[in-house]
């Protein structure tokens, strides 16, 4: 199968590859997929005042899965939580020119974004109210 130039570029030069500490303040972590299925994505966001200031990923999977998550971190940076909610897998498919057999990679990336946002919300809601 031939990969699009954009997939190859993200694969060879992954953007924002790495990890934040999970318990760091303002960090939301999403982990989706399963090793038996051949792909697992970990996507993390760092939020300050409702804006995603940084994002990181680590992915076990094919080139398209790696490219999808790399692209997702690029898009997340600078977006508000609300804007980030609107990223759709079809946007990723279009940007990376993914063939039908690789659409599940983009679905996984959207799931990872949603999971990271949910995790962030959960952590923020659970934070004890400052009573000082």
């Amino acid at each position, binding site marked *: 199968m031939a*990969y699009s130039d954009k997939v*190859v570029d993200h*694969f060879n030069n*992954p953007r924002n*590859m790495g*990890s934040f500490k999970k318990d760091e303040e303002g960090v939301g972590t999403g*982990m*989706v*997929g*399963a*090793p*038996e*299925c*051949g*792909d*697992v*994505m*970990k996507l993390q966001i760092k939020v300050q005042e409702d804006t995603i200031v940084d994002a990181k990923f*680590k*992915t*076990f*999977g*094919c*080139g398209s*899965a*790696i490219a999808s998550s790399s692209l997702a971190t690029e898009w997340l940076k600078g977006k508000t939580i609300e804007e980030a909610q609107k990223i759709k897998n079809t946007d990723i498919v279009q940007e990376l020119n993914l063939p039908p*057999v690789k659409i*599940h990679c983009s*679905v*996984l990336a959207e799931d990872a974004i949603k999971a990271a946002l949910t995790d962030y919300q959960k952590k923020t809601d659970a934070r004890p109210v400052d009573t000082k």
Partner: protein
Amino acid sequence: MKLPIFLDNHSTTPMDPRVLESMLPYFVEKFGNAASRNHAFGWAAEEAVEQARKQIAKLIKADSKEIVFTSGATESDNLALKGVLEMYKEKGTHIITSSTEHRAVLDTAKSLEAKGLATATYLPVDKYGMVNPQDVEAAITDKTILISVMLANNEIGTINPIQEIGKIAKAKGILFHCDATQGVGKIPVDVQAMGIDLMSFSAHKIYGPKGVGALYVRKRNPRVRIAAQMDGGGHERGMRSGTLPVPLIVGFGKACELCEQEMATESARLSKMRDRLQTDITAALEESYLNGHPTNRLPGNLNISFAYVEGESLLMGMKDIALSSGSACTSATLEPSYVLRALGVGTELAHSSIRFGLGRFNTDEEIDYTIKKVIEIVTKLREMSPLYEMAKEGVDLKSVQWAAH
């Protein structure tokens, strides 16, 4: 050294220039139909075909009259299974085969089952991919007409105990077919000593042309008969009609002759290169696991799973080396390799497997380059892998509740 490097010699092989040279006169100059009995053009073609038949038979210790030409090993497998089942349907309808056979055997058996023409037993293999002869014996019923077990596996290179299975078949009076596509020309094959009654193989796996193969059909002790699956002019003693592709057959013959002459030195050379590839890679990369038998395997085969990285991404990272993977993403079915699964290799490690197939034209320099590249890309992708990170943190990946998708 020229890039890309071809290390996928189980899928096909480049044709040996000496083979091409032998074929050239049979396209334009000596173009006759080998079945034309009444003129010089036909005689020249027939003579060339008979010469090739001898070269091919010699490699497998058969008689040249026992070679039936086909379009390739897939057709040979189909002809053997369907031909035997149809010919001997009054005597029995049960086939015994193994779960790691090539799909040309498995799907043929399944197709016979679906049509109600046969029942089949698919034997399990051990953790190295070997069929146990005792399992073969235990699976035999009074309806068993054919045993079909491959010589060497195309993914993991494991060599089956063919001689022992042949003995069992003979003792029980059951026909024995062997798909020897990966083994012929690479390791010694003797249809007499191995007790083989029918055997499939092809030219393009042994540096010959694509589009031609053979089915060995035993003529004596016992005389094996098969029902033709292709009707027509009655070529190949009625077993396979169709005008013989003379240039391809001439090339097939030459390819067999070269394999026979060079097998001893070539298998030693390939084993040495393969062992170096294995030793250097596994020494540098923790948690890389050999798939297949540690010693009893094809000289040019190496199949390794690299934990925590996915096979297709490995191939993508080594674009200048032609390899293959058991990962789902590289297969049409989106399922990881059924061969590795049959060995009991976990799905996640099946996704992480790479097959190296070394051949006649690979050099030490290419192996050096491959070793370097593999270590580089596996290290890079592990840095990128959340699974590797978790494993390093001491998380037991099996205890994690994954959401399968």
